[in-house]
């Protein structure tokens, strides 16, 4: 049987890739995708712990968090569309009308 550490390291690497993408990417849609990666890393953690302790609550949590992520992306894409209509760009570097 594969030890639990392997799954946890996989999830941690996925989380780190997502966090890296959020920091360096300039396209806000790609940033939203990277946030999805981070959420899925947490979901994998829940599933792994749930499977190894034979406790179903973790799987319930994952179903909830998937639906929350879907709602968040739906709202996020709508807000990006709104910003594109107002500003004709959604590059993160262009969001500079307010600072300090």
């Amino acid at each position, binding site marked *: 049987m594969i030890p639990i550490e392997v799954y*946890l390291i996989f999830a941690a690497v996925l*989380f780190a890739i*997502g966090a890296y993408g*959020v920091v360096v990417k300039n396209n*806000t849609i790609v*940033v*939203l995708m990277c*946030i999805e990666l*981070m*959420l899925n*890393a*947490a*979901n994998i*953690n*829940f599933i*792994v*712990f749930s499977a190894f*302790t034979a*406790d179903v*609550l*973790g799987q*319930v*949590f994952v179903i*909830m*968090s998937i639906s*929350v992520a879907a*709602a*968040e992306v739906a*709202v*996020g894409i*709508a*807000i*990006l569309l*709104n*910003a594109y*209509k*107002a*500003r004709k760009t*959604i590059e*993160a570097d262009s*969001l500079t*009308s*307010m*600072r*300090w």
Partner: protein
Amino acid sequence: MIFDSSVVTAIFGQFAPLAPMIVLIIGALILPAVFFSTKRREAVTAVSMAVIAVSLLFNILMMVDGYQGEYAGLFSYDAFAGIMILLFQVVIFLAALVSVSSSETTRMHYGAYNSLLLAASVGMMFVATASDLITIFLGVELASIMSYVLVAMKRSDPRAAEAAVKYVIIGGLSTALTLYGLSMLYGVAGTTNIADIAASLSTQEFSWAFGIAMITMIAGYGFKVAAVPFHMWAPDVYEGAATPVSMFLGTGSKKVGFVALFKVFLVIFVAANATASFATEEIQYVFAVIAAITMTVGNVVAISQNNIKRMLAYSSIAQAGYILIVMAVMTEYALASGMFHMFTHVFMKGGAFLVVGALITVGIGEKISDYRGLAKRAPLIALAMAVFLFALAGIPPLAGFTSKVFLFSSAIYDNGVMTQWIWLAFIAILNSAISLYYYMRVVKAMFIDRGETSERIKIPRTFAAAVAICFVFVCVLGVFPQLIMDFCADAASVLFG
């Protein structure tokens, strides 16, 4: 007896602990229909006011009667939930009341706007009643996702579109961090019920997984309460959003993060304190350092702001730093006074935002220089604004002074013994002095500087009523803090068991 909660149990049966939220959910579902059938903003506001009033009535009945109940092991209504639900109801009441006459709120989608406001406050109340990590997570997300839309709803201003993009990305990042922390906490404790987690952790040694859970959750909820260094979204969002929405976010949405922090961290640490193997003190120090940096950065950066909404946003970050003292000190008295400060903050900061919103509606700009000579043009509003700003700075006998005395004294003495957090109280008092400077700039502009015109201005009636409510509470709570403080003390003793 006048206050008898058996009415609530008779109506709602097993769902009685959720009664205030159920009323608001029903309201949120019918409001768009009300708007599409009548096409009148006043009708929508009347219905949402009625719904909020019913919800408020149920909550006060349950709170004063000392009702306790739980639903499905996910929600439990106790003194802590009652007082926090009351806070969110006050916020939603003020926000819904002024939205109708504000020139910044949407005209086409006013029904949807109101139902989003109600749904966001339902999310906040879910967090207040939650007894499980699942319901805390869902409540915070319900409040956050609704807030993203509310910010983006000011379609006339390109700054709102930009603020909404920043808010949704930072909010998503915060969700991801929190969820990762929750998953680690679930892995360590093997359950999602908060009381069971505390019981399970008190039998364990400190582990690296628990450390990761703490770090990511502090970061995730740090974004929600806008603690430095996770605060960069807050000024942009408060500046870009419509002022009633800024008021709702600054006074309500920020408190959700605190309620979640109280629920998760305090409960865990009170249990963990029983076993000496836990690194409780290290995490208390982390919170103490975050609190000190948050209040200092908030106050210092606020000095250089020219936009009044942005200045209030930074001052709100500083206030979050004061409330974070609770997480460092972690005593029952500190929690009670922290909750009392959350209440007075609603009236002080809420009142200041309402005055700004009223003045924007009558055509005065957001710059501090636009406020010159306001005392001649609108003496009562200028007086109210001055009182709110004095209260925020902590001038006696106003509410901000009383709550700051409680909060800072909790960091100095614990049961007559001097605590190790006295340096935190020192930094906080120093910061109050700094904050007086930038509040006085606004008061000086209003009362001393000469304006270009002395034409009288008349603000809309709903704004005047909301400002009057805040004004009364800022004055009354300063002199009679026990009105709210007694409930806060009960609530704190519930969390500390």
